[in-house]
């Protein structure tokens, strides 16, 4: 973290959709780091003000709150971070963020902050939208009535941010009497109503029609209402939902493809170059067949994760995601969940770990647990390289759209299995509480591309950081296990089957034999418990694909897979065994980080254990069933 003038922290607090994060991005110039609140996995950002505003001030962006009386876990974290942050203590100063077009409602939090005893500066955002409505805001009157400084922020151009920083520094410098903020005790309904009515009245007095401002041809609310007529229409709403989601998921493929090819070929040629540098040396073999082969196999799908994260952030920022969640509320409620489950389940297609964290926004404990229960069943991006490899094998030499179609079937299959699991979970879950759904539909806004890219980059990087070390260590283990003890042997087959991994594999082979595979795949499946994508890198190491470098790694891995034989001489990878593997990967929970997060987030290791055992057992039985079923039908 960069040095800052303040020892504590200035907290940004406001309702969801108040423009809080946009303001934070302006204040910091996107120089921030995303951190976990200690003891939990809710992340929020801490940064310092940009140098162009002078001496740095440390800022914290907290999760959005509708009031300081929390009704979901992420609201709870926001309030805790405000009062008793383990590192920064109680916030030195609070920037209460309110949307000018929603002033009355957003002033509730401002009032609560003031009553808690914080030093508050009110930042009123989206002044530009207010002007579009032909209105202006009397900041002086508002400041006088509230008893705290008020700064107006232009939502589009960022005007007012410098004034805000100056005000922050002035207030921090004025070391007046020390403040002792306290957590509020729950207000009586009459009190809340009274404060809201007062805020209403105040908003009416400070926001006025302004004759100098011509009402814009279309203000944001009128525009939003027009868009909603289509996007929430009984027919067109569903059509556009399918189109938007279809576009998001297909872009994961066609946009990412060139980047993936470049990464794949880059690693292949690098590995080939290393092998040529010192032929026959154990170090070169380790670097090429161990490290480079496994990293290449995994980094190749980073572009896809990035695009998925960017797409989700884009939808979130534009305001569409709230509509999508609203639309999904009905179908989800049949399964005991709510529309709030939509965003976690959508992010689960990138990675289950952040999705489990996103589930904190779900208020009801029951629907939150159900959502978290089925999150691991969504087709996360770690499964992508596995599917990509197995489908490449199944449809080798056929037009690529066939594999694409098969992948779509896999995605839908996973959704159906998720729905079944939710229905089962709905029956066995003992927690009973009332499910409710209240979702604010913000006005549609054009997302700021730079901020979207930054957010997607953050999420991708944190993913790579988490997966990277695991992949490295396992690559080392798998490589050593398949290379030693008799690495001098000329015969590759002997070398492999007599290696440590080979010996271990033969021990566990009886378990995997019903799936129609041998110990080599078994090793891959076991190592995939660290992270699914390790399956591909293990296969790459086991079949030492970096050895022949004419082609890209995936292609040569498929070529090696085609040649691989079982002990009895029949092919190892057949349509039946590969389909069985795909089914296994759809259901299995081979991700210990997911289990760790599930246990921490639910506060119940029983829940996490149940998930782990149930999904893996179901996956194994389903895979065995599919393999034998296909063979019975004559498909080998």
């Amino acid at each position, binding site marked *: 973290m960069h040095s800052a003038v303040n020892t504590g922290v200035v907290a940004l607090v406001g309702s969801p959709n108040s423009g809080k994060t946009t303001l934070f991005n302006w204040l910091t110039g996107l120089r921030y780091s995303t951190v976990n609140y200690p003891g939990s996995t809710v992340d929020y950002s801490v940064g310092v003000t940009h140098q162009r505003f002078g001496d740095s001030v440390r800022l914290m962006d907290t999760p959005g709150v509708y009031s300081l009386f929390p009704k979901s876990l992420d609201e709870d974290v926001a309030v805790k971070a405000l009062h008793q942050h383990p590192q920064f203590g109680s916030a030195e100063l609070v920037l209460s963020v309110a949307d000018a*077009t929603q002033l*009355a409602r957003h002033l509730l939090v401002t009032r609560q902050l003031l009553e808690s005893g914080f030093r508050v500066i009110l930042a009123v955002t989206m002044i530009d939208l207010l002007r579009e409505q032909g209105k202006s805001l009397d900041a002086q009157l508002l400041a006088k009535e509230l008893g705290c400084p008020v700064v107006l922020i232009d939502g589009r151009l960022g005007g007012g941010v410098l004034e805000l920083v100056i005000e922050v520094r002035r207030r921090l410098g004025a070391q007046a009497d020390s403040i002792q903020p306290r957590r509020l005790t729950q207000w009586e309904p009459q009190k*809340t109503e009274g404060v809201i009515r007062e805020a*209403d009245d105040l908003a009416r007095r400070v926001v006025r029609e302004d004759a100098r401002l011509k009402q814009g041809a279309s203000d944001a609310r009128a525009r939003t209402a027009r868009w909603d007529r289509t996007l929430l229409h009984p027919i067109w709403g569903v059509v556009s939902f399918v189109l938007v989601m279809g576009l998001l998921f297909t872009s994961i493929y066609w946009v990412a493809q060139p980047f993936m090819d470049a990464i794949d070929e880059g690693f292949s040629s690098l590995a080939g170059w290393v092998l040529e540098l010192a032929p026959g040396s154990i170090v070169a073999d380790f670097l090429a067949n161990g490290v480079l082969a496994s990293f290449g196999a995994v980094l190749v799908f980073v572009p896809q994760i990035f695009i998925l994260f960017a797409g989700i952030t884009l939808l979130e920022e534009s305001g569409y995601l709230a509509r999508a969640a609203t639309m999904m509320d009905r179908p989800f409620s049949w399964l005991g969940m709510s*529309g709030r489950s939509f965003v976690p389940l959508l992010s689960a297609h990138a990675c289950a770990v952040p999705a489990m964290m996103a589930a904190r926004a779900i208020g009801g404990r029951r629907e939150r647990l159900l959502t978290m229960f089925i999150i691991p069943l969504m087709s996360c991006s770690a499964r992508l390289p596995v599917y990509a490899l197995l489908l490449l094998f199944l449809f080798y030499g056929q037009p690529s759209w066939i594999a694409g179609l098969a992948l779509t079937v896999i995605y839908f299959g996973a959704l159906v299995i998720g729905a079944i699991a939710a229905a089962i979970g709905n029956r066995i879950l003992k927690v009973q*509480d009332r499910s409710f759904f*209240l979702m604010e539909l913000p006005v549609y806004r054009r997302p700021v591309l730079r901020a979207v890219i930054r957010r997607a980059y953050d999420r991708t990087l944190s993913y790579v950081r988490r997966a990277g070390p695991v992949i490295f260590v396992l690559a080392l283990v798998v490589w050593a296990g398949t290379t030693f003890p008799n690495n001098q042997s000329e015969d590759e087959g002997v070398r492999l089957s007599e290696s440590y991994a080979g010996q271990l594999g033969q021990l566990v082979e009886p378990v995997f034999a019903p799936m129609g595979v041998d110990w080599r795949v078994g090793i891959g499946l076991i190592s995939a418990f660290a992270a699914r994508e390790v399956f591909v890198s293990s296969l790459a190491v086991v079949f030492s694909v970096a050895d022949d470098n004419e082609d890209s790694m995936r292609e040569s891995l498929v070529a090696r897979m085609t040649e691989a034989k079982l002990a009895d001489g029949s092919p190892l990878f057949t349509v039946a065994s590969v389909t069985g593997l795909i089914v296994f990967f759809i259901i299995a929970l081979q991700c210990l980080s997911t289990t760790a997060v599930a246990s921490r987030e639910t506060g119940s290791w029983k829940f996490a254990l149940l998930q782990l055992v149930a999904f893996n057992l179901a996956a194994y039985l389903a895979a065995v069933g599919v393999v034998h079923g296909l063979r019975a039908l004559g498909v080998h």
Partner: protein
Amino acid sequence: MELNVDAYSANPFIEPALAQEVASPNGRSLADQAAGFSGVIRGLAGEVLVVDRLRELGFVAGHQITLKGCSPFGDPLIVEVNGTTVAIRRQEALCIQL
């Protein structure tokens, strides 16, 4: 738009007593209104958690409320109150007395 009391008896998570309390016997809740309805909130009644959150979102006695329509699958309803557009389930709309 009909009052769907059956949704409550079919929902095992709600105490029957509570369901009766929120089921608005006089037919004057927001859930009884047709799309396009506009009126004034008389009060809120129902489960504390839901009512508290509704209040914090600006659903307060005396406020003008408009029922703009419903989402494609019929539920939730799209409601506008005090310049804010909110999606709420019919179940929550029952808490809003007119």
